[in-house]
């Protein structure tokens, strides 16, 4: 469950967006300059909006009325970057386990073995990132983010650097993730087909407002 409402003026640009949804995947859509980045910064806590609130999974992260603003690194937002960013000096297993060092045991909702099975990583555990295909890297990156026990998973064009075949191969894993894990996903993409397949809720931005 994600609930965001934000009004924020920056120079001549005004962001004025509100959405609340129970959809497991919210797709964020919009050309550059539409306020997408500003909105993402508000959710991440990098920008404190002039007025608004951010609630993820029942937990309030920003509420300008009461002055609440959880610091970015305490929001536990998991990121899957377009370029994977796996740690090259660590095996897949240790990449996956990295975030577990820093999350409290009571916060961890996903078991290591379950995530490995869900994303089909069993055969890759002892390999180094440099030996993985693009699609495999992204699956490891997703698993790594999940195992850090995020409240929200933010995926930024996670398939954009893959060729068509790898994308087709990786998409079903994200669908399984959506259906089997309770973490809401904020999915940023320009690819219409990905968004149609994954997201029931689409937030389309234009000029700082929902279009």
């Amino acid at each position, binding site marked *: 469950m994600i609930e965001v409402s934000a009004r924020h003026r920056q120079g001549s640009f005004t962001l004025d967006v509100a959405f609340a949804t129970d959809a497991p995947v919210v797709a964020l859509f919009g050309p550059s300059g539409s306020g997408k980045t500003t909105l993402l910064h508000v959710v991440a806590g990098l920008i404190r909006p002039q007025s608004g609130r951010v609630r993820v999974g029942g937990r309030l992260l920003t509420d300008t009325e009461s002055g609440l603003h959880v610091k970015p*690194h305490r929001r536990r937002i998991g990121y899957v*970057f377009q370029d994977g960013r796996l740690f090259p000096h660590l095996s897949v297993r240790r990449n996956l386990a990295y975030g577990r060092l820093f999350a409290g045991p009571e916060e961890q909702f996903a078991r290591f073995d379950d995530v490995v099975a869900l994303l089909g990583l069993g055969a890759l555990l002892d390999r180094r990132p440099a030996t993985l295909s693009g699609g495999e890297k992204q699956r490891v990156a997703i698993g790594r983010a999940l195992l850090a026990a995020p409240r929200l998973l933010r995926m930024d064009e996670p398939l954009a650097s893959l060729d068509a075949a790898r994308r087709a191969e990786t998409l079903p894993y994200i669908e399984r993730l959506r259906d089997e894990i309770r973490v809401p996903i904020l999915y940023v993409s320009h690819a219409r087909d990905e968004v149609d397949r994954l997201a029931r809720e689409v937030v389309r931005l234009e000029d700082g407002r929902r279009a």
Partner: protein
Amino acid sequence: MTLSADEWTAVRLSLWVAATATLASLPVGIAAAYALARGRFPGRALLDGFLHLPLVLPPVVTGYLLLLAFGRRGPVGAALEACCGIVFSFRWTRAALAAAVMAFPLMVRAIRLSLEAVDRRLEDAAGTLGAPPVAVFATVTLPLALPGVVAGMILAFAKALGEFGATITFVSAIPGETLTLPAAIYAQTQVPGGDAGALRLSAVAIAVALLAVVLSEILTRRVAGPGRLT
């Protein structure tokens, strides 16, 4: 080729002094390299220049400054003793200090280059996984820069091993205490019939230096190797 007992003493002392100098200055070297690679503070260029001074100054000047600073009445020597109880009481520790100061720029340079080559985006990724900055440094930055750190240590070790001018100015050349390999070679060349000994010791110096440079080269290449970003 066999070394005499005195020659062995000089070689052993040199290895010991160089190893101590390298290991003791490593934490400071990493901190300085990190400050220069990442820090944004006023006086950064000045610090950079200051750290490079021993590389460009005549070694005798560095040795003389050390003598002034760390002598019995020297301001740094007295302050270190007063604040932390650190006394460079043994002559060989002073030789190690001179070697460390002379080797420091080389060490910092190698570590700094490898730190600058670390992909900051990987550090950001570690941050999003909940790692606090210290943990990011320990688990991502330092391991990725490790080949450069090792290369810096090897270069510093080789430099420390060959250090002559500053050492002899600072602590003279006392057999078994401060008579290091280069000083022993110099001494041999000053006595009639010392050529054989000077040659033997020179061969040892060449072998160690060559080994160090080759090792450092291999490790540096690994830093620039493939698989930096996945």
